[in-house]
């Protein structure tokens, strides 16, 4: 089922075109990564989808309907940074949000527990560390138990431990069947938690696809032999090998997804070549991302 679709979303500031005719769809259950360098239009896109930034042109639909306050109540979202009144405690702040979202007051303690803030619930927001503020924001997004979550740079400014905790939290939430839209400039993060992703640059969509496909596309095989020359000529005969680069006394092969290490070693065995090193490496979104950017240039 379609959760979100946009057509021709465009946002122009005086000179700058922050978003340029953006079309994309998000299906139920996706963990959708919105990738792009800083200033590529990620937050602008989310701001428009949440009705706090006015699009210059274009339309979008939530849950197949025209957007409204009612549809926003079914979305838990944080944009850029945690926004709470500094003099209010976690419980007090969530009371306001529960009132707005028409969520039961009992769920306040539940979400505070989920993000590990229950013990600090009666302290003022201004006394929190950045990590705690971020976690309170996630708690507020979870409050009404919404089917869709939008998280904009949720690990921004967190220490490594905090980052791991938030990622685990996101993965857990994703497993409960929620649709998550995650904006990030951290490729590693998207690779670890997302099922699908879209790459934005200068407000244009460069790519949209599944993370698994992209990683498959990035599958590499490292290979080494006692006789590198012989190995090179043998490999160049194999159709499954797409490219070959030399690094640290080994060859790194970009291969067809169907070519496994078993097939390759059988092939070389038949050619009587002795292999001293054979390793299949997982691709990374980072490489794919850089290639997408390069291809665009």
């Amino acid at each position, binding site marked *: 089922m379609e959760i979100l679709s946009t057509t021709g979303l465009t946002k122009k500031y005086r000179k700058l075109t922050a978003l340029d005719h953006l079309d994309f769809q998000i299906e139920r259950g996706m963990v959708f990564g919105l990738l792009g360098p800083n200033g590529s239009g990620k937050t602008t896109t989310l*701001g428009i989808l*949440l*009705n*706090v*930034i*006015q699009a210059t042109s274009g339309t979008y639909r939530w849950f197949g309907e025209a957007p*409204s*306050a*009612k549809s*926003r*109540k079914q*979305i838990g*979202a944080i*944009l850029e*940074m945690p*926004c*709470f*009144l*500094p*003099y*209010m405690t976690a419980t*007090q702040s969530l*009371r*306001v*949000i529960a*009132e*707005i*979202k028409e969520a039961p007051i009992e769920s306040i303690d539940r979400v505070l527990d989920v993000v590990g803030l229950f013990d600090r619930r009666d302290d003022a927001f201004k006394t929190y560390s950045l990590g705690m503020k971020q976690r309170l924001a996630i708690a*507020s997004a979870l409050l009404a138990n919404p089917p869709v979550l939008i998280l904009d740079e949720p690990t921004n400014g967190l220490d490594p431990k905090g980052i791991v905790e938030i990622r685990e939290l996101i993965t857990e939430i994703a497993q409960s069947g929620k649709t998550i839209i995650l904006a990030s400039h951290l490729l590693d993060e998207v690779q670890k938690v997302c099922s699908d992703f879209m790459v934005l640059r200068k407000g244009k969509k460069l790519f949209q696809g599944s993370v698994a496909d992209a990683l498959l596309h990035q599958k590499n095989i490292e290979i080494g032999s006692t006789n590198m020359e012989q190995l090179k000529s043998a490999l160049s005969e194999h159709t499954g090998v797409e490219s070959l680069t030399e690094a640290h006394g080994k060859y790194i092969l970009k291969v067809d997804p169907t070519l496994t290490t078993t097939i390759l070693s059988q092939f070389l065995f038949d050619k009587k070549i002795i292999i001293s090193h054979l390793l299949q490496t997982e691709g990374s979104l980072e490489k794919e991302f850089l290639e997408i950017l390069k291809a665009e240039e």
Partner: protein
Amino acid sequence: MLKMIRVEWLKLKYYRPFWILLGMYALLTLVVCFGGMAFLTWLKNEGADFKGYNPTALPIYDFPDIWQNLTFLVSFFKIILAFIVIMSVNNELNYRIVRQNIIDGLDKKDWLLSKLTLIASISAFATILVFFGGLIMGLIYSHPDAKSLFWVNTHFLIVYFFDLFIFLCFAMFLSLLIRKGPLVIVGLFMYTLAFEPIAVLFIYYYPNYPESLRFLADLLPVQALRNLTPFPFKRFLFYEVEDTVPLMAIAIATIWGIFNIGMSYWILKKRDL
């Protein structure tokens, strides 16, 4: 509507400056209500007299004039209530609460409504306070024959509520427009108490100012509200005093009210939050 009142209440009840300012205004109202007699007694002790009359004999607390006298005086301090509105709106813009509230599923219209309920509540609170102040002082000091006139001229209380409501809407609009709380506070203070009164005096009395354009002074936002309650104290010098509400002033003030609320909504709708 009830929901918006609850949201606003939850946001403000833990905000200490809100209670301090509200308390200050309440105190000032009571000082104005109860202090009149003390002031006149002081004048008497200083040896002042009004054409041979004892100052304490001035009927400031007589029904039905008391309502006009008190609301006219208390209205000068409404800027304190405006500070509450400015701080509330400014906090929400500054800490991006408006934005988060919209994201969380509030309609922009609802947010505006929540601020209007705040404004209406503050105005109602202030009005009730003057009512009780007048009630107590009137019952003590009013001429016994005048007590039957208790309800006459209580329309000045409604006018007082209206005056506050429009003025606070003006403060809300400026806060949304300018977005810098301290600047709005200083600006509104200077404008209300200095710039506009000087401009009004100039327009009214500058000899070379064209006679046909003197009415422009009455169109200014603060003067329009001031005109709602005519200056009451000339009656002690046996001048005729207007004690009906000038309809023209009501009309001008209403237009300002509509303008302030309409523009506030327009800003919310058009501007990126």
